[in-house]
């Protein structure tokens, strides 16, 4: 008997309790505390499940429905180290977000906290489940929670629009995913991931396999925000209340990739094994494209939250490269990087939330130099920007070096160079903002015609309406920011984390042992990993990224934009113009993405 299901059920129960008492409890600070405690309990339970698994995989069958002669009849949680660690990571971010909610969300009822708790529970369940349809249910649950949470600030125009495009594009994504699941069920007669993989391997890699792969991957990549499925992301993340943005940017997108990795190995690994090299090329290419588009768009923004959203997209591309290398080393690197980057990104979101809380704007130009009075946050922000550019010894550095090594081993020698450029661009853009806002140096940011329209509607109202306490920075805001940044630093310094991640990844990719354990109850063999920490090349690449980030920041501060070639600016405008905020455009791109992905996989399979 495992504690893993409790990590989902406890926050759910707390959420229903909050909702049930909502009409009677006027003060919502107490509700906020209850929500934090419930999220904390979920985090502790996730940690307990991780400890309980102890490097192995732990299988829990709901209702005690064990498989009958190798046929799964119920739903299982298959708690492997990577899944449990992701769940723990999500729950920890959830605690930080809910702490900020106590300060930021000024509503009279408890419903916000209740929905946020269900959101966290859904993400935890999504990480732990071993059943494809159950994965879909949690996927849908977290989406619905996210639509509501993003649109919560309904009185303003932008959140409403962000929530609409978010809901429309993601609904298309989940319908595509469900079609893929239906096709797979038709072929295999199973919903359990392990059993699906086993049954699929008995048949040919034909049209059904190719198309269901494209549909499932496409549906998950909508969530992960890979190009060309990414358009909704910036619209939604930029307008969500800060604590929600923190959860979305830190974990939500990354969960799309986690789901892809899970399905990639458990379901499709065996049947597509002969075509692995081609598949690798497709995924790495998609990742690189995403990373570059995200980085360029990030550097072009002047709306801080939107900038962080594009930084998220860009880094999702880099994680996709790590996972797309289709080996344990790349996966381990991506896992470490996702956690490290998620913590840094969350700290940055929290800092931006603090600026918004204080100055009621997140426009770079309007904030110019005003951050000087809260210099401590400035140090934090700039450290975060450099950590995004993989400054050692923060967590992202560790993950990035591992992915680089894996790419070199796989024969993708050009990938680390791209990664340096991308990290330098995103990190440099953020550093530029840090210097402008907190030091007031450099050429002020230009008025951005793209965000001007949102401006008029905002009416200068921040998330908080009382301006009583400008003298102090609320501890409930800077506390989580500092704690998250400290955690990101600690993550890069934990002894043995590389070896543990290596073993966990070996476990994750060993699908035959996984299926044997889940379906037949065969004990797992021992795994070992030869993964080691960063070597000389890793340090050199990191030095290049950080130096590049500084150069990018300095160039921007010196006003390089005015001297840029006209053709480059026009190309940039075209790219920005594609992010039109219109759901019809986004739906067309989603259809195109799935069609192209399917076509490419079809070519790969031959």
């Amino acid at each position, binding site marked *: 008997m495992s504690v893993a299901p409790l990590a989902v059920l406890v926050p759910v129960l707390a959420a229903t309790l909050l909702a049930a008492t909502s009409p009677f409890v006027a003060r919502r600070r107490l509700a906020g505390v209850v929500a934090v405690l419930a999220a904390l309990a979920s985090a502790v339970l996730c940690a307990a499940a991780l400890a309980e698994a102890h490097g192995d995989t732990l299988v829990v069958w709901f209702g005690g429905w064990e498989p009958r002669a190798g046929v799964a009849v119920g739903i299982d949680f298959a708690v492997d180290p990577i899944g449990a660690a992701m769940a723990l990571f999500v729950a920890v971010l959830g605690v930080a977000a809910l702490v900020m909610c106590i300060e930021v969300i000024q509503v009279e009822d408890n419903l916000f906290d209740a929905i946020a708790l269900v959101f966290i529970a859904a993400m935890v369940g999504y990480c732990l489940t071993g059943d494809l349809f159950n994965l879909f249910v949690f996927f849908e649950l977290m989406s619905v929670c996210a639509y509501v949470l993003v649109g919560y600030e309904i009185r303003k125009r932008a959140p409403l629009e962000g929530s*609409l495009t978010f809901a*429309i594009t993601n609904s*298309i994504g989940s*319908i595509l995913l469900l079609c893929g699941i239906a096709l797979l069920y038709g072929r295999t007669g199973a919903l359990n991931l392990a059993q699906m993989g086993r049954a699929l391997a008995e048949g040919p890699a034909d049209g059904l396999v190719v198309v269901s792969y494209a549909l499932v991957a496409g549906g998950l990549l909508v969530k992960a925000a890979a190009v060309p499925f990414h358009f909704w992301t910036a619209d939604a993340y930029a307008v969500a209340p800060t604590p929600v943005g923190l959860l979305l940017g830190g974990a939500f997108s990354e969960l799309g990739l986690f789901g892809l990795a899970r399905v990639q190995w458990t379901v499709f690994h065996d049947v597509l094994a002969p075509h692995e090299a081609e598949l690798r090329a497709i995924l790495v290419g998609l990742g690189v494209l995403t990373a570059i588009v995200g980085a360029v768009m990030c550097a072009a923004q002047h709306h801080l939250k939107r900038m962080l959203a594009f930084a998220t997209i860009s880094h999702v591309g880099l994680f996709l490269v790590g996972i797309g290398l289709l080996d344990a080393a790349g996966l381990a690197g991506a896992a470490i990087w996702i956690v490290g980057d998620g913590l840094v990104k969350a700290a940055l979101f929290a800092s931006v939330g603090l600026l918004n809380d204080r100055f009621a704007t997140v426009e770079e130009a309007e904030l110019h130099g005003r951050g000087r009075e809260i210099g401590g946050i400035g140090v934090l922000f700039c450290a975060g920007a450099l950590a995004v550019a993989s400054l050692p010894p923060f967590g992202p550095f560790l993950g990035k070096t591992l992915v680089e090594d894996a790419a070199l081993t796989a024969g993708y020698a050009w990938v680390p160079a791209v990664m340096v450029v991308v990290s330098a661009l995103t990190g440099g853009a953020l550093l530029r903002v840090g210097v402008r806002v907190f030091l007031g140096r450099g050429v002020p940011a230009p008025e951005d015609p793209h*965000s001007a*329209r*949102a401006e008029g509607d905002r009416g200068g109202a921040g998330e908080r309406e009382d301006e009583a306490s400008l003298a102090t920075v609320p501890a409930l805001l800077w506390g989580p920011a500092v704690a998250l940044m400290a955690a990101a630093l600690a993550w890069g310094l934990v002894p043995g984390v590389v070896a543990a991640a290596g073993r966990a990844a070996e476990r994750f990719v060993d699908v035959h042992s996984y299926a044997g354990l889940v379906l037949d109850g065969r004990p797992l063999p021992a795994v070992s990993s030869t993964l080691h920490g960063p070597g000389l090349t890793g340090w050199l690449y990191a030095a290049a990224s950080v130096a590049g980030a500084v150069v990018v920041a300095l160039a921007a501060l010196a006003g390089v934009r005015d001297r840029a070639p006209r053709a480059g600016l026009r190309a940039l405008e075209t790219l920005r113009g594609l992010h039109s*905020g*219109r759901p*019809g455009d986004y739906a067309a791109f989603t259809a195109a993405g799935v069609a192209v992905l399917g076509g490419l996989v079809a070519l790969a399979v031959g």
Partner: protein
Amino acid sequence: MLAYLVAVWLLLAGLYGVITSRHLVHLVLCLGVMQASTYVLLLAIGWRDGGAAPIYADIPPNTPVVDPVVQALTLTDVVVEATVVAVLLALTVQAHKRFGTSDPDALGALRG
């Protein structure tokens, strides 16, 4: 085979509607058409020639029945559609109230 093709058709038609829609309520109902494609696909996959409905109330215990698993999945799917429609329509009503238009192409306050 006809059933599968109808499912494919519904998916494509619904997606076409979403791409070209000029009214948010129209767009939401087109999403409903896409969702209907998944119902048809799932239930068609579960159909057994000559099978009875999987309810052993008035049939002998060893009658061949159609696949009940896809039906349970479709039930969940129907609920999901209803909820998504509810949330999207709530947003649509708000959007119209705020901006005075229901044209999805009028969205894009924050873009680029």
